[in-house]
Structures are given as C-alpha cells and as structure tokens.
C-alpha cells in the first residue's frame, strides 16, 4: 500500500508539514499544494530540512499554485517534481491511500 500525503500549509506558518514528514513512510509521496508549495523553495531557512526529507520521500508541487505565487521551477529544490491538476489526479490514482494534512 503506497500513500500520498497532501500538504496545503505554509511551513513557515504552520507545523502540518513537520507532522506529515514525521509519519510519512519511506518511499511515500508528498504533494505540496496551495500555500504548501513554499516548502519546495530553495534558499529558505527550511530548505535544508526539506532536502533531508527528499532523501526518503518523493516530493511533488502543484505548478498552478506555484505560478500563482510568482514562483517557478528555477526557485525549487532539486528533486521536486511539478504537476498540474491532471498530474494531481494521476498521483491520487497511483497511490492506494490519500491523506490530507489539514
């Protein structure tokens, strides 16, 4: 059984991402949407934590939400993969369980 974890909170404002990463199994996937996409940025005070997370989980970020916030792939940590809404749907199909960390 593989899990997709969805995080929609800014990691600077809330601890949802920390909780998610604490309970995410090795090799599960984390999809960052809405204000959650800020967690994928390079060069922030939280980037190092995310870089370590990227060693054990696969991280996706929702491109529509990233662009809405004036960011693009060039600002992201290596290893973060962008998806659009169709790709979001595909991720929920590809994983057996989906959990939103609201």
């Amino acid at each position: 059984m593989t899990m997709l974890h969805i995080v929609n909170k800014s990691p600077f404002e809330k601890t949802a991402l920390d909780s998610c990463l604490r309970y995410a199994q090795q090799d599960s996937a984390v999809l960052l949407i809405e204000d959650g996409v800020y967690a994928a940025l390079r060069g922030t005070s939280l980037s190092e934590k995310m870089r370590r997370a990227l060693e054990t989980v696969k991280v996706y970020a929702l491109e529509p939400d990233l662009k809405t916030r004036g960011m693009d792939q060039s600002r992201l940590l290596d290893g973060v993969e962008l998806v659009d809404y169709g790709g979001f749907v595909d991720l929920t199909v590809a994983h057996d369980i989906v959990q939103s960390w609201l």
Partner: protein
Amino acid sequence: MKFSVLVNEGPYQHEASDSAYHFTKAALEKGHEIFRVFFYHDGVNNGTRLATPPQDDRNITQRWSALAEQHNLDLVVCVAAAQRRGIIDADEMKRHGKDANNIAPGFRISGLGQLIEAGIQADRLITFGD
C-alpha cells in the same frame, strides 16, 4: 477510477474550494467518475445562491453549479453543518419555520451518512480544507 471529494471550507476565505473544483474538473477530463462532492464544516457556504462576487473575480458557487449540470455531479451539503451556518433549501425552510432559503442550483442538502457512503463507494476520497 471513482472519486469522492470533500470540501471543508467556504468559498474565497480559503483556497480549498478552488483546489477541489480544479481537481474535480481534471478528474472528469481524464475520464474518471466523480461519485459525489460533499461539503462539510464551512464548506457548506459554497452552496448559497445569494453571493455576488466582484465581476473581475471567479464566481465559485456558479462554477460548481455549472460543472454539476454539465456532468450530472452530485453536490451534497451536510444538513447538520448547514443548519449551524444558515444554508437551507425549501424543505429546511419549512421545517425550521424560516422565511427564506438560499441553496444554489445543483446543490442538495442531505445527511452526513452521504459522506460515509462517499468514502465506501469511491476508490479515493480526497479532502480539501484549511
């Protein structure tokens, strides 16, 4: 694949309803089935027909109503959450002795059991909220 979608926040205040809409639309475009969209907590506030958002912004409720009409979507507003927050249809209006109702086209009010059923019947239940 068969999806259910849960929306836990009202329109505009949070992005939840936007994300849920775009997800639902994308799933339909990929040929998936949407078993039900269930509106809970402040999510019930998506179901009012009395809103008039600025003309240069999206109309979240009308967008859901149009998608429901086009794809015969089942948009269910939780009755208990809706009673707390003042979203009512003609039946609820009569039952509670109110003088008006505000439910939007394409939405129906029903019980929380519809959320459980949505979880049972769908292959995936995707939650959007704050």
